[in-house]
């Protein structure tokens, strides 16, 4: 259902994989290629090629590693360390590798119910012990407090059953009861989404977890086949054919919009700092909130009804008593 695509490896990745392999394999012990590919999460051909390359290496007429090439063709790996100079230790992480992983761990720590905090701390210590100690870390993440408990959602996903909750519909600020077949939780920097199959809409939807209340697990409602077969994209919002094209202009402070909204073409520079781009939008009312938050660093150029939607949204903000509560679509 949800398959991470295997990355294409660069030369530097391949070198890294060779180092990892010799650090992992025990002298002479048998392994099979598919198992190693699964362990290192790389295509099988990369394992075969890395082992082959190790077998080819020759320094001053000495081959540090012995392999059986015919056996390798059959998917079996047995690497023997032939010389004193056959490298078999795992190298340290570079400062950047360590920082990236450490920052990722800090981020995981902020997600409730994912791991015990001492479990993450143990891993943080392992990472720290794996690179030069005198160097300060390069990256640090101090996550936005995610104060919602997602334990119950993860339980439902692991059990493969649906949930029921009250969902705050942003359109008219009312709550409706929803039955959702949960597929995946996507924590983003400010908001956590639940990606799932909405039984009411009969479609894949993204739900903001901060708008869900009174969530209960429906033990008897198994996740349906149509939900399992639905292809989950990495994007939270998937455009449809009925969407309108909207032109926006942003100053650096609102460049984030260019990434959030996924322009249909490369943004164009209007002057030294402003960028103009076109996006597809399902409902122009959604733009009110998105544009207004930037307080002037973003504006809609066209069409007119999109401009009006933003204007109305901001006007209502100035005079909350006289206007209706601003609306935007789900």
């Amino acid at each position, binding site marked *: 259902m949800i398959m991470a695509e295997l990355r294409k490896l660069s030369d530097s990745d391949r*070198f890294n994989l060779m180092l990892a392999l010799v650090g*992992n394999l025990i002298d002479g012990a048998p392994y099979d290629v598919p198992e190693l590919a699964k362990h290192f999460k790389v295509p099988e051909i990369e394992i075969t090629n890395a082992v082959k390359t190790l077998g080819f290496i020759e*320094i001053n007429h000495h081959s540090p590693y012995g392999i059986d090439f015919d056996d390798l063709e059959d998917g079996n790996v047995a690497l023997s360390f032939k010389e004193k100079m056959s490298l078999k230790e795992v190298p340290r992480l*570079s400062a950047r590798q360590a920082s990236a992983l450490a920052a990722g761990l800090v981020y995981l720590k902020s997600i409730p119910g994912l791991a015990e905090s001492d479990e993450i701390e143990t891993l943080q210590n392992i990472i720290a012990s794996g690179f030069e100690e005198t160097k300060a870390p390069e990256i640090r993440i*101090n996550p936005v407090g995610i*104060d919602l408990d997602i334990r119950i959602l993860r339980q439902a996903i692991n059990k493969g059953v649906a949930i029921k909750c009250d969902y705050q519909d942003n359109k008219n600020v009312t709550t409706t009861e929803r039955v959702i077949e949960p597929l995946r939780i996507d924590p983003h*920097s400010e908001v956590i989404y639940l990606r799932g199959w909405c039984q009411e809409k009969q479609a894949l939807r993204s739900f903001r977890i901060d708008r869900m209340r009174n969530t209960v697990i429906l033990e008897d409602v198994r996740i349906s086949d149509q939900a399992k077969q639905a292809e989950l994209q990495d994007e939270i919002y998937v455009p449809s054919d009925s969407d309108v094209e909207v032109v926006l202009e942003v100053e650096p402070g609102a*460049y984030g919009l260019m990434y959030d909204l996924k322009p249909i073409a490369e943004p164009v520079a209007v002057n030294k700092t402003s960028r103009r781009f076109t996006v597809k939008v399902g409902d122009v009312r959604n733009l009110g909130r998105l544009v207004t938050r930037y307080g002037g660093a973003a504006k809609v150029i066209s069409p007119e009804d999109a401009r009006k939607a933003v204007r109305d949204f901001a006007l209502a903000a*100035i005079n909350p008593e006289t206007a209706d509560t601003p609306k935007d679509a789900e």
Partner: protein
Amino acid sequence: MADKSVAKYKISKPERLFALTCALLYSKVGLSKHQILSSIPGYMNEYKPNGNNKTLERKFERDKDTLRHNGIVAEAVIPAHEDENNQATVYVIKKSEFVWPEHIKLTARQLALLSLAAEAWAGGSLSTAANKGIVKLRSMGVVGEDSDIAGIAPRIIEHEPNFREINNAVSDQRVIKFDYRNPNTGVIETRALEPWLIQQLDGQWIVLGFDQKNKEPRNFMLRRMVSKVTVAPNSAPFEAPSPEDVKKATDDLEKFADSQIATLRIKPDTAAFFRYEPKLREQKSKDVLTLRYYDKFVLAEQIREYPGQIDVIEPKELSELVQAGYKKVVDDHG
């Protein structure tokens, strides 16, 4: 058995890097550049014994950079008895700096968590580094054990155009220059910074570094940079800060945030109320919320997402900022 002596066999870059690593790690006294170029596969086949080897030397320099980015330091050493004779420079990888300090095995669950930490960078500037790190760490796990943490895909959002350049400059200790817009005055000024650390605070990416003009540590928000970040070519690296210097500067920023408190009134049964309800409950309050913040402009943006639902009680300047933003949006779309 395949025949290694086939003349057509071309040494690949991974093979050359690996052979170089082995040779520098296990040579007793280190290898001179001449020895490296004339004896290591990947160089030796192109080496001209009495000719010009400038291209090969550049290849070696690039390979050293690649090794460094992989966490392997090929150090240049002048043997003690050679005094300061540059000609005698040899290269060596010190074993104590190469290997993990102790023997660590990772459980399948630990590997799954670390993989998730690496995947959080998916598509971001650091995904390559995180992935390489995780491949190394997997070598400490037992093949065949399996534990997946399913049903969750955390993502660290990083789409600052200057992120990669700044991150490289932090690693390589290079001074960066950029045009920065002061949010209070709107004035744009070119800044020169020795970048120390990239932080994400309140969802915003910030670079901390030593400001060369003001001669003190300063913080800059990446989204307020209005130019590309540049690094002077061939500039010398600056001296790395001590972990204590970095800690003091980050502590100072936290202290500053501690001193900035906003008081907000949240309208019940609104989207804003839903958003802040857990915090209100934590503060045992029905509708009045206090928030600590790093940057009033960022907080004003968060508040503007909920028009008519959040009333800024104090500070006054925050309230004015929120309102001024609304007015500007109305004017822009009139």
